[in-house]
């Protein structure tokens, strides 16, 4: 298979190979109108060829860029391949991006065509049309609501495919021309441009080469032994590098099937129906699944609850060891097997994880308890680390060597180095070609000998040989007494609590550390219900004194944990407040992949930070809230500040 993939050096060529080799096997599924539709590899090739022919007839040429805006749908994935067939470069955009973001990406990438999901996206593009003089054609998947629109520039994708199909049947020359274009594709061609929503500054367009993508994907397919019989659910944003890697690249390389859920709301139900064999989710999703489970367990009968907790204890004792292949006494194994039958099996079934052979998480640190929980019930959950510039995978945990606090060993063919200042550098098969139209920043991010700077600080754990991430290199700072301050390290400890959805700590160039917290509405809401606490809005719940008490206890626990580590002992949190609203990507406070934009948040919540450090008991603020359609509204709040206990640390000499 490796040699085959090597011969096929672009994704369209891989599709042709798959249609030949896996002809009748399912390639794409989509739940529509309540039933699962399926397309085999042969059928997909036929559709995508017709689509490419149709697009060519509409004027799409080699070298053009085509924006893809929408959620996970077969026709949008096919838009990527169809564009690549013609030699055009797809540029996916986040479906929930506001008009300004979309305008930036399309203008920056000079997009001539756009393939979008539905009326909402069409409206968004039409509303910014004057800012996009180069945009000529918009094709859409879902017809609803678009009947009466002016179709001068608009066309339904189904119509484009039908037109292409008809033309291919009538003019053999068209088919030959298309085949020539596909053959003319080279591994060195630009295969896709993924805009990375930077935590600082404007988005950058990461350009990836076809052969880079395919080589990287081939390595990980071999690493995880993925085959054409596997199934995955495509539910994470299409514009995210992880989706393009896991669901597009790996699927084309290995030949497995991608299932697109009916809608974002039904994703978890659909997962149960599909029973994927490979699963990726950010830690947040794993946490939500567990919280949801625990909440439902609270409502179960006493016998079930007792059984549940008893067997979870068994799992805690033996589960991970069994999964890791370590020695476990016979009695333990039997008990665990009983637990599998009664509890863990049905549990995994409800979550849709029954058939998952390999599960990954990445993006932020996962709480060790959460990680252990899933492994203990038999889910092979592992961590990986990477970034868009690497085309995702830099490190991953191999089976049998799983630790809660590392992100794994370097992936096959990835050359990882730690610079003197602790920054992680890499060279990898999938590494990017450069930032689109931004040689300056491309050069900034490369070292003299061709390594890419990740911007993350980390070290190789001597015990395990695995990489451990500390923080974003830029964010590591120092308190006024010279002690090390790594905000992410502290925030991760805080976020391990289901009640805390997001945390932003502050301390660089200050005397002590303060925290701004977001509560998790699901977890805290259900806790409030069970404790007869009444609230009328998120803001009210976030300001409730009992909620503050609960979070203060969490913060104090974190302080105790920090006190145990010499390097972190001085970075204990002294004061905190609970934010009156969730940090939101639409407000620019977090990226589309939920990473906090530290600088922006510090600016916006400056009144809070000032109050935290000047000893005030309360702080006022007025913030702008942006809705998805771009409308802005001002939200005012008065937020309480709480002091918490810290563990006293013996006064050391001031660190040089």
């Amino acid at each position, binding site marked *: 298979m490796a040699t085959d993939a090597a011969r096929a050096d672009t994704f369209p060529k891989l599709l042709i190979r798959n249609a030949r080799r896996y002809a009748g096997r399912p390639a794409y599924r989509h739940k529509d109108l*309540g039933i699962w539709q399926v397309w085999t590899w042969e059928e997909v090739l036929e559709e995508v060829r017709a689509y490419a022919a149709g697009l060519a007839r509409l004027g799409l040429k080699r070298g053009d860029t085509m924006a893809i805006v929408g959620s996970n749908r077969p026709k949008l994935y096919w838009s990527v391949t169809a564009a690549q067939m013609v030699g055009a470069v797809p540029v996916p955009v986040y479906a929930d991006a506001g008009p300004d973001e979309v305008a930036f990406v399309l203008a920056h990438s000079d997009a001539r065509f756009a393939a979008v999901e539905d009326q909402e996206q069409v409206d968004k593009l039409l509303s910014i049309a004057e800012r996009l003089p180069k945009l000529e054609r918009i094709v859409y998947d879902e017809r609803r609501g678009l*009947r009466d629109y002016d179709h001068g520039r608009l066309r339904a994708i189904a119509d484009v495919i039908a037109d292409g199909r008809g033309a291919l049947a009538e003019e053999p020359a068209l088919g030959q021309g298309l085949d020539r274009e596909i053959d003319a594709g080279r591994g060195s061609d630009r295969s896709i441009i993924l805009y990375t929503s930077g935590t600082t500054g404007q988005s950058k367009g990461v350009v990836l080469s076809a052969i880079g993508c395919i080589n990287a994907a081939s390595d990980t397919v071999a690493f995880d032994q993925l085959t054409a019989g596997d199934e995955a659910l495509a539910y994470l944003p299409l514009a995210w590098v992880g989706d393009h890697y896991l669901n597009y690249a790996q699927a084309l390389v290995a030949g497995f099937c991608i299932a697109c859920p*009916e809608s974002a709301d*039904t994703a978890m139900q659909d997962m149960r129906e599909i029973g994927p064999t490979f699963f990726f989710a950010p830690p947040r999703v794993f946490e939500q699944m567990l919280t949801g489970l625990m909440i439902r367990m609270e409502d179960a009968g006493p016998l079930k609850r007792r059984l549940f907790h008893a067997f979870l204890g068994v799992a805690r004792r033996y589960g991970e060891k069994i999964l890791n292949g370590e020695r476990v006494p016979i009695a333990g194994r039997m008990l665990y097997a009983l637990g599998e039958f009664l509890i863990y099996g049905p549990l995994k079934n409800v979550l849709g994880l029954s058939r998952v052979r390999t599960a990954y998480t990445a993006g932020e640190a996962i709480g060790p308890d959460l990680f252990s929980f899933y492994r203990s019930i038999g889910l092979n959950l592992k961590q990986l680390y990477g970034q868009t510039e690497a085309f995702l995978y830099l490190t991953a945990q191999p089976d049998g060597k799983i630790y809660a606090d590392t992100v794994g060993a370097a992936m096959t063919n990835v050359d990882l180095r730690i610079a003197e200042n602790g920054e992680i550098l890499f060279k990898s098969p999938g590494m990017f070609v450069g930032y689109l139209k931004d040689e300056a920043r491309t050069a900034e991010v490369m070292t003299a000998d061709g390594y890419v700077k990740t911007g993350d600080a980390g070290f190789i754990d001597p015990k395990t040989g695995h990489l451990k991430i500390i923080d974003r290199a830029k964010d590591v700072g120092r308190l006024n007494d010279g002690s090390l301050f790594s905000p992410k390290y502290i925030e991760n400890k805080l976020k391990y609590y289901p009640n805390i959805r997001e945390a932003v700590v502050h301390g660089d160039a200050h005397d002590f550390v303060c925290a701004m917290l977001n509560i998790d509405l699901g977890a805290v809401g259900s806790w409030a219900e069970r404790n007869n606490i009444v609230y009328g809005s998120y803001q009210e719940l976030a300001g409730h004194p009992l909620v503050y008490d609960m979070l203060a206890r969490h913060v104090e626990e974190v302080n105790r944990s920090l006190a145990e580590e010499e390097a972190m002992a001085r970075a204990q949190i002294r004061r905190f407040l609970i934010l009156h609203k969730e940090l939101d990507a639409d407000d620019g406070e977090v990226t589309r992949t939920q990473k906090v934009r530290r600088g922006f948040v510090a600016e916006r919540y400056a009144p809070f930070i000032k109050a935290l450090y000047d000893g005030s008991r309360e702080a006022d603020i007025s913030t702008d809230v942006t809705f998805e359609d771009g409308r802005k509204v001002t939200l005012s709040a008065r937020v309480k500040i709480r002091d918490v206990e810290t563990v006293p640390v013996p006064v050391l000499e001031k660190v040089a």
Partner: protein
Amino acid sequence: MNSGRYSLRSSGRNDDGEGHGATRPGGRDIAAGDVLLAVEDVSLAFGGVKAVTGVSFDIRKGEIRAIIGPNGAGKTSMLNVINGFYQPQRGRITFRGRPRPHMRPYEAALGGIARTFQNVALFKGMTALDNIMAGRTLMMRRGLLWQLLRLGPALTEETHHRHRVEEIIDFLKIQHIRKVQVGKLPYGLQKRVELGRALAMEPDLLLLDEPMAGMNLEEKEEMSRFILDVNNHYGTTIALIEHDMGVVMDLSDRVVVLDHGIKIADGTPAEVQGNQAVIEAYLGPEPSR
């Protein structure tokens, strides 16, 4: 299921929602803009309580008609008269060109009039999907025995109805609750399911009784969007009772204002808004200087 007296209405709607296909029994085809339903001099009294007195107005095909008025004005009674729940003592209703003396609710339904209720009248123990399927009952041709055995034609028919219902579920974005027992759903979603059930009938005239009642701003905007979409996409004529003035002004083409059972204004939202009698009905008469 039904007696077979009324022929199966072939649903001529394709995925693009291009209007009605075949004609409904009883009445002629009405062109867009012509009068679909006319209420003439209708009076309804419950003993001494005069709910509605001498009210006349019409509803034109394809429009969104609002019926407004302060509490107790007789709006729901008016709707119930149109629907056939109440028989007026005086006056008559003309639907699709034919007068309808003593129309029963099921005759109204067969004729193409669907409605929703102020306090949500769904089958609480059934799932959302089943509730909306229930709205297809009048279109099911095969009898009880056929449906029990689920043989050939009954199966084809059920698949067809299920397809239509799934389109409505897709339209109203309730895929994630299609198998949830309706009684467990929050109020806003229940209202949406009820709207779905009314739409399942593929009505010519949709009567909405306070569709926004008990909703917050976000829910109201969503419901308004759905009502507009129903009017646009399916071409359904809509008559709605509503208290939220903003919604009424934004959504409706024409407005009828009732007060104490009497019609006091009739016209476009702008006309009605400036009407002195309407202002007085809501706010009370101007204090005399």
